């Protein structure tokens, strides 16, 4: 399905080849294919619409360039717009000026939060920080044990005063962890929270309470790269619930096209900061908008198409 898709796009672009100027009909034909491509890559419908209208607007208004033919121009616009929505240059983590830097993780069930907690801890430790993992998922069976294993593997400390499995108050654990970190001089606190649904009002309130208790420097929304149209609803709910400051895309080691990246960026305007791409602690990278743009369109390298066009 994916191959024929890029073939289709390439075919559309080929039809545009050699024309001196882009007609509205040319642009319509092209954007129709791009719309399908985006939907098949799981970009959510509202994001697709907004994207297409931006591309159309720019394509229509574009000056006829001397260096590029019209087809190349459309591809270039698509690529530029994708990269610009996905965040342009990657943003770095914000560190606190005084006291420990606090990073809170939030997201749907099974998104990859606890695994990310371990990865972040290891990554920070490798940069000579002294991170502390905080076990605030007291819900999922053995989430505390799981985080304990991550801490051990990463060689970092853990604050886990409650056993979990339904026992203990996550807000209190979160609050106490800050005092603990200060007294023991940990400089980064990573708060793992339970997975929750956007529509679960009680659990979203709990997340908001945890946020209020730790006053994080970063709240990272962890989202599974395989998520479909629900990305928009969920991202919106977490934005309202915990006002996240950045996004982490997980399970990018699969073959999902990852349209969620565009959906989330579109509805929240928050930048995608990291890519989680495996189950091991080192499977973790900065997010690259340009690579993601190519991946979403499923064309290997979008820019190489410009050369072909």
């Amino acid at each position, binding site marked *: 399905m994916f191959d024929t898709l890029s073939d289709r796009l390439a075919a559309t672009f080929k039809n545009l080849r050699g024309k001196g100027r882009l007609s509205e009909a040319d642009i319509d034909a092209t954007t129709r294919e791009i719309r399908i491509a985006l939907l098949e890559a799981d970009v959510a419908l509202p994001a697709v619409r907004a994207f297409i209208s931006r591309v159309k607007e720019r394509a229509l208004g574009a000056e006829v360039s001397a260096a590029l033919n019209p087809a190349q121009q459309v591809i270039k616009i698509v690529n530029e717009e994708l990269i610009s929505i996905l965040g342009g240059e990657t943003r770095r983590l914000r560190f606190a000026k005084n006291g420990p830097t606090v990073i809170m993780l939030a997201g749907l069930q099974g998104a990859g939060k606890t695994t990310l907690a371990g990865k972040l801890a290891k990554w920070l430790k490798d940069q000579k920080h002294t991170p502390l993992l905080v076990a605030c998922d007291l819900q999922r*069976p053995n989430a505390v*044990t*799981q985080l304990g294993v991550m801490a051990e593997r990463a060689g970092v400390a853990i604050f886990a005063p409650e056993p979990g499995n339904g026992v203990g108050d996550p807000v209190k654990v979160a609050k106490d962890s800050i005092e603990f970190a200060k007294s023991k001089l940990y400089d980064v606190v990573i708060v793992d929270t339970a997975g929750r649904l956007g529509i679960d009002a009680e659990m979203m309130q709990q997340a908001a309470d945890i946020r209020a208790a730790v006053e994080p420097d970063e709240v990272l929304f962890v989202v599974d790269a*395989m*998520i*479909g*149209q629900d990305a928009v609803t*969920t991202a919106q709910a977490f934005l309202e619930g915990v006002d996240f400051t950045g996004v982490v895309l997980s399970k990018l*080691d699969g073959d999902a096209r990852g349209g969620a990246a565009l959906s989330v960026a579109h509805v929240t305007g928050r930048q995608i900061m990291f890519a989680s791409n495996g*189950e091991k602690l080192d499977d973790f990278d900065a997010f690259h908008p340009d690579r993601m743009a190519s991946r979403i369109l499923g064309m290997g390298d979008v820019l190489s198409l410009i050369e072909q066009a």
Partner: protein
Amino acid sequence: ARSQNTLGKGLLNLLSRDRLDEDTWEEIEELLLTADVGVQPTQELVEALRTRVKVLGTRSPDELRGLLREELVALIDPTLDRTLNTAKHADEDPARPAVLLVVGVNGVGKTTTSGKLARVLVADGRKVVLGAADTFRAAAADQLQTWGERVGARTVRGPEGGDPASVAFDAVKEGIAEGADTVLVDTAGRLHTKTGLMDELGKVKRVVEKHGPVDEVLLVLDATTGQNGLVQAKVFAEVVDITGIVLTKLDGTAKGGIVISVQRQLGVPVKLIGLGEGADDLAPFEPEAFVDALLD
């Protein structure tokens, strides 16, 4: 007066047809797309509907929705056999428990589903053994064991990082020795693209089959999954020949429309749905209820 009447009627027709043509059709397309049904199946559905609308002379958006519901229910096929084979093979000597293998990509709800399913079976008076064949993920066996304790099923586990196939083998062996009715083998989450891990899964199944055929291979799909769900299902079906799908996390806002393609392309029915994190949040899949929720 007569001509006025005709004109009036024509206008009315035109107006109602307009509504059906423009907004309503677009709405229907959007509804299907945002439910993760996928571009191609959506286009096919809309085409089929257009034909039926022409034939039937359907006018009102409400009627159209009714037709759409019919089409969707037919696609999901209420006549498919969705029973779950969990009964002991009492006729064999020694009697052998039914063996279920639970598979899927990472974090979809395999372990939770295994726990919930054990709960249903135990409540039905069966003796259940859980096999913790996820020896890889941190605390995975502990998680399954906690579920086992919660619902009254013993968990067979092996050393962390050990061979999952031998844990699965042992679980069935102990199930036979204990006279269990059902053995549920929970496996590690793995992306379908990782050939090494998929080979490992194939081996788990083959090794378990030394005791006799596996009764069910359940593929767990997360309702939030988009178009990738189809690829996942295809690859898992190739490797372990899945017999049923469990669609989890339907308690959220995601509609799980991808299972329509999955069912159709693989001919494997959705058998169960997950509706939460609690022990009782598992239910049989009902095509009509699923479609109603999708159209909601």
